[in-house]
């Protein structure tokens, strides 16, 4: 018991990888075994992260549940894990969404073994990023998450998967190239990669001195942009977002759920964990530019979503749109660090990360549900399906409303906080993003209308194409999401407290 207590984070981190290795040795062809074993294995980190959540002391500053092991001493890197309010929220999101995604994948029947292994490796990769307190370890897990996702898209995706997977890989690797170089530079300069010590050391560098032959401020600026581009590609910030629609659309359903639900958050997390604390000055200087890009993402994302005829692509662009709010909140916080408004905006941004994770995962799953039955994502081919599948329709409307930001559901809380916080700081950008918000409503409603309302499309009404209702397993996937969506919408304090305390301590 004591071992578990002192190694909670490592267990959460490595149980999925271990489970994947175990799957390797299970006999081939036993699809049901793989499904249930993986589901069970992914529930263990979830339970453990709940344990951590309840033991987490929100009043304390700094990182808790820290663990540090020797790893690569020769270059000054140690295996250092730890969580604070921000990362714990993300960890919870990840460990929650993964079992749901696996449950959603029960309908996969092609090479299930490999699929499940890749999923579990992916989970370890994502968790590692959130828990890392050593820059090198951060980078290691950042990269580790790429390859399973590449293969998931490439092997189990839809028609255009080759292109989409390659684009995903190259974009992200290209983006993280700058990150790699900047981390190397930091390692060379400081002789270690420990994040906590880097916060102090980096910020206490005398700006008038020179570093590597260049003035400190220049070096910091270059490093800032290197970090920023890497994370901007991941979030994605407009205009680095073009990989997203393809990757999301072509990925298998569960892949899209995780991609939108968690992977995008990795980028935002990078902004919060690394860029704001390490480069407060540069962030402030460039916050305006960031805000412009955020606004562009919100507005253009919404417009683009509105124009889509492919249901999944519509949801993909909605991710661009929603993540734009996260970036807006971050920009506002960067610009006016330490003020009350900034805190509010940042709270909203982080909550939005969590919320979008829930609602995006839900939306992608629902698209997947209808796709499995109709084998098309073309909005024009649907129509008036509500009477055929009332339960599905209800769930779809519920989740879409969350995405839209209906008061009473989670989306409203986070978007409101962001806008409330950003308005005094960046009024113009906030105003323009309202336009985006308007169009969010537009595309959501348009989407629902085309699928559920209007005259019934006879094609799906009878015969071999008769639409079947959403089944129990699929409902089970949605229920936890819907419950959380509602709960946060009505009573967000339980999570906002944790987030708020973390945010306040961040500055």
């Amino acid at each position, binding site marked *: 018991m004591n071992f578990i207590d002192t190694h909670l984070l490592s267990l959460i981190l490595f149980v999925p990888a271990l489970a994947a290795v175990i799957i390797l040795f299970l006999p081939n062809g036993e699809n049901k075994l793989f499904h249930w074993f993986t589901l069970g294995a992914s529930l263990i980190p979830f339970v453990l992260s709940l344990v951590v959540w309840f033991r987490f002391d929100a009043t304390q500053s700094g990182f808790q549940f820290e663990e540090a092991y020797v790893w690569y001493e*020769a*270059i000054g890197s140690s295996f250092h894990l730890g969580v604070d309010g921000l990362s714990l929220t993300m960890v919870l999101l990840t460990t929650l969404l993964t079992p749901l995604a696996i449950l959603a994948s029960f309908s996969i029947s092609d090479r299930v073994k490999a699929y499940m292994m890749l999923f579990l490796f992916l989970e370890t990769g994502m968790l590692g990023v959130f828990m890392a307190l050593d820059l*090198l370890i951060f980078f290691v*897990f950042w990269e580790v998450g790429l390859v399973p996702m590449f293969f998931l898209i490439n092997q189990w995706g839809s028609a255009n998967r080759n292109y989409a997977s*390659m684009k995903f890989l*190259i974009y992200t690797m*290209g983006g993280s190239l700058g990150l790699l*170089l900047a981390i190397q530079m930091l390692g060379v300069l400081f002789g270690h990669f420990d994040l906590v010590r880097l916060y102090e050391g980096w910020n206490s560098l005398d700006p008038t001195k020179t570093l*590597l032959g260049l003035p400190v401020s220049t070096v910091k600026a270059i490093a800032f942009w290197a970090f920023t581009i890497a994370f901007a590609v991941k979030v994605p910030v407009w205009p680095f977002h073009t990989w997203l629609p393809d990757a999301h659309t072509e990925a298998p359903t569960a892949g899209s759920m995780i991609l939108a639900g968690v992977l995008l958050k990795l980028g935002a997390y990078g902004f919060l964990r690394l860029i704001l604390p390490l480069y407060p000055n540069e962030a402030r200087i460039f916050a305006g530019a960031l805000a412009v890009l955020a606004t562009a993402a919100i507005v253009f994302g919404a417009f683009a979503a509105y124009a889509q005829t492919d249901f999944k692509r519509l949801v993909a662009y909605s991710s661009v749109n929603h993540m734009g709010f996260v970036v807006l909140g971050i920009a506002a916080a960067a610009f006016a660090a330490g003020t009350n408004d900034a805190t509010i905006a940042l709270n909203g941004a982080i909550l939005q990360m969590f919320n979008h994770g829930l609602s995006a995962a839900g939306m992608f799953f629902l698209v997947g549900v209808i796709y499995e039955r109709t084998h098309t994502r073309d909005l024009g081919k649907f129509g008036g399906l509500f009477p055929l599948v009332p339960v599905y329709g209800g769930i779809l409307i519920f989740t879409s409303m969350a995405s839209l930001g209906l008061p009473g559901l989670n989306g409203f809380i986070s978007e409101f906080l962001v806008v409330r916080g950003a308005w005094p700081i960046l009024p113009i950008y906030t105003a323009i993003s309202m336009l985006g918000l308007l169009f969010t409503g537009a595309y959501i409603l348009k989407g629902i209308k085309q699928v559920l309302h209007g005259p019934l499309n006879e094609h799906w009404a009878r015969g071999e194409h008769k639409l079947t209702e959403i089944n129990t397993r699929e409902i089970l996937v949605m229920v936890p999401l819907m419950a959380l969506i509602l709960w946060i919408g009505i009573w967000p304090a339980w999570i906002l407290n944790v987030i708020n305390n973390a945010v306040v301590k961040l500055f």
Partner: protein
Amino acid sequence: MNFPVLSVITFTPMVAAVLILLLPAQRKNEARAVALAAATFALILSLWTYFNYDQAAAGYQFVEKYNWLPVLGISLHFGVDGISMPLVLLTGVVMFTGVLISWGDDHPHVMAGIQDRPREFFAFLFILASGVLGVFVSLDLFMLFFFYEIAVFPMYLLIVIWGWIETREYAAMKLTLYLFIGSVVSLVGVLVMYWIQYQNTGLLSFDMLQMEQAGFSQTFQNIWFLPVFFGFAVLGGIWPFHNWSPDGHVAAPTAVSMFHAGVLMKLGAFAALRVGIMLLPQGAQTWSWLIMAFAAIAVVYGAYIAFVQMDFKYMVGFSSVSHMGLVMLGFSTLNQQGLLGSGVQMFSHGVMTALFFAVVGMIYDRAHTRQIPELGGINKIMPFATIGFIIGGLVSMGMPGFSGFVAEFPIFMGVWGRQWLVAVIASISIVITAAYIMRNIRQVFFGELPEKFEGHLTDVTVLDKVAIAVLCFFMVVIGLFPRFMVPMVQTGVENILRLLGGQ
């Protein structure tokens, strides 16, 4: 340690070669069995030595010294330090897996392994292995040269007799001439060093530990570093003297390619380090910028050329040029991180490229083509080999969790410490590598199996699987637990830094 383990490891292959030659020509399986026994023995010994190496102690271990020609100062002086120990292990591993890959099963459809005159094949391969091991453990310059040259001529025979019929004669001659030229250029430099040491200290000795204190002047070092370093570095595949390597790789039979890229190129880099950098440190400092420039070009150029290849084996060959460029890049930094990374990269790349060539060979033996557009769906037939290749590919990309990252990261850190622009340029290769590795993995292993292969291709043999598993094992273990190799290399690096003047 009284048991002369290093001489035994070095001479076992030679003895085995003689024994194999004494067997009658028809006894193919006996020849293979003797070869495997010898390789296993050498591998076990090198593993034993590796684990008994004191990772905390500096200096050379398992030292043996026998006077050979005292009048001229030639002795049989053996010893390993933190840099050469992993390379000895690497040789043992590649030798072992190479024998497994070359087993040959006399199967009508599959042209796997070596079926024509395996006796001579293994004999020549083992002479090569002895030469290689001798260089790694030699602490006497004359003997280092002796073993270095022994490693040259078997390559010619191995490629010309058992290689790819289209280019083997051309490639074998080109390779041999290049390597020979490189080595004799270094020989001139070494002989000059020998006499100048005599002038400076009155000592007539080829002993390398002695020569570290020979007191070569700055001018002398500046002039002679270039021929000595680049003479050896030719074998390391440094641009622009790398031209022999891709053709040589492709023309050679599988086990020879594994040896060639996996071990032989490390021989060149290692000798360049041992003789060039360690004995002429001030010269190294003067010329490090040139090495860095050439290495950076090799890294990016090699990756780019690999990207455009249509022949699978050429792709691997050029990727070797790129990765050996990283080794040279690390050398050129002359600092702790860079040298550390190079030391690990020599091992990591050695294992990785051996795996690559092994799998490419398995595919070619069955499909009789190496053209990437013509291949596809190999995963359905050889899943084990596919996973092996994917792991190798991830190492090649420097993916964390594998040995490639453990090696490449410090190299880049080292370069940052010297010339940040070079680090940025060289890092472009990472993306290019990722692109061509992923693209080619997808094309060759996944996708549709071309019709003409249906029903004709068989899975790899048990021996092949063992070889793949052994190679993957090392790549994963070093990647996850760097402490099994890094501290050892570190002690070797510290020695070099001491010679460089404590930088």
